């Protein structure tokens, strides 16, 4: 009890723990723990340079305004493009990582990107297929019902309305957008 100085007794002695658990106490000495101390100057990272060479081709690469320069290496996986690209570039150019606007714009860019890509996929040779891409067919093969009935899972409550929550905000945004467009059209007339 914390009302007196003693630490509550443990159910097992170190000898019992050592007998029951493989390796118990092997890293008792902090000197054996590879991340103690956190900062060390004596590790060999394998780098054989003082400063890495610059990866070429980064002239247009978006970057955080908290960086003083483009980093020596950078990913080139999905360059910015389209409307989502413009939103993302604005988020990078205008707001630091310290600003919620930076991240909320990036999330907005993600949603626009998804819709742009879904639409583009319908005119491509390979339209998005929500059935195969969401993997819901695994419900049958992976015991969807019995897995959820097992025990006292608390996520089952929201799993049932996850699709609504995940997609629903876009339905709402769509309705708002249509209403706004109508108002605009009416005003222009």
């Amino acid at each position, binding site marked *: 009890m914390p009302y007196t100085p003693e630490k509550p007794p443990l159910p097992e002695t170190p000898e019992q723990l050592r007998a029951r658990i493989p390796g118990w106490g092997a890293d008792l000495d902090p000197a054996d723990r590879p991340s103690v101390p956190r900062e060390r100057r004596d590790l060999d*990272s394998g780098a054989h340079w003082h400063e890495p060479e610059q990866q070429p081709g980064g002239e247009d690469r978006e970057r955080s305004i908290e960086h003083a320069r483009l980093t020596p290496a950078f990913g080139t996986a999905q360059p910015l493009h389209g409307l989502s690209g413009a939103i993302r570039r604005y988020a990078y150019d205008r707001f630091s990582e310290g600003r919620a606007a930076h991240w909320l714009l990036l999330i907005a860019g993600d949603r626009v990107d998804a819709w742009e890509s879904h639409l583009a996929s319908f005119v491509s040779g390979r339209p998005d297929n929500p059935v195969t891409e969401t993997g819901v067919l695994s419900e049958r093969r992976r015991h969807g019902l019995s897995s959820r009935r097992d025990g006292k899972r608390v996520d089952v409550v929201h799993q049932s309305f996850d699709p609504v929550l995940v997609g629903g905000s876009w339905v709402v945004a769509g309705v708002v957008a249509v209403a706004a467009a109508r108002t605009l059209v009416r005003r222009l007339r």
Partner: protein
Amino acid sequence: MVYRGPYKIRVEEKDVPRIEHPNDAIVRVTTASICGSDLHLYHGLMPDTRVGHTFGHEFIGVVDQVGPSVQNLQVGDRVMVPFNIYCGSCFFCARGLWSNCHNVNPNATAVGGIYGYSHTTGGYDGGQAEFVRVPFADVGPSKIPDWLSDEDAVLMTDALATGYFGAQLGDISQGDVVVVLGAGPVGLYAARSAWLMGAGRVIVVDHLDYRLEKARTFAYAETINFGEVDDVVVTLKRATDHLGADVVIDAVGAEADGNLTQHVTGAKLKLQGGSPVALNWAIDGARKGGTISVLGAYGPIFSAVKFGDAVNKGLTLRMNQAPVKRQWPRLLEHIRAGYLTPSDIVTHRIPLEHIAEGYHMFSAKLDGCIKTLVVTGDA
């Protein structure tokens, strides 16, 4: 695999990645795995996750090409690649903060580089693929010792190293009572590692019975199912003679369940940078003067964390992305000695073609899923 938008992925043919920097290598992936962190991407929670992005930061493979300045690797080497991308020489790398490199991620300064983890961590495609570009090939990857199996090796690239690192962040001393929130791969490894550091009791909390069963058999832990108790914090206090835990490890992160409002605002509506339920349980469940180790990933905006309690209790909060390669030499010793048996938690092995179903199964926690390996080729 490529991302097509929230909850949607598919397999596509892409060009083989090219050497883009003199110290790049191209690795042909043989085994990859799906991490709890991938679920944050899959659910559309991670800002700047672009359609077409290939996920996967846990992978091993064979070196297929090397750039002109690569000295430590050769074509044909069987390598494991830490999930961190890092240069080895910036201010942070020079101090051993290998998960916090400043030279690889132009998109953000607050986070280093990670394979297949959106443009917020640098815009590098990941390893749930046939080929992957590996920057700073002289720094990150290591040759896999002959005696180590592919399955144990792929688990070293993140989950095992992270759990082991998390136990170290807890600064465990002999006889400490350690509570681990979350019985996913990271939590299970953290619980098992806590014993190596001399814990006196290890208690694992989750709401999935099949994972708690694993916590008892694999991690030798006591367990609490938070779905079955009225108030987890009170349960933890009762379990610790009303003292609270010396150390609490958060191995849950941004999509924590247990409080519907927090879950929905944090994980679904994105009104906060993740659901801080587990973090708050950690703060309330720890003893005064105790330590909290945060492994769970959170988003880059604010979350409703009970900071006042953390201050009033004088807690030490420690956290980071795991600097994976720093853990390897010691982890290899522990695996060799039989102290750690990483592949015991693997429940599913699937081919790359079935990855959409693999994600759904792991996300919805179906079929007893704990860890899924994606087998992409033959070594």
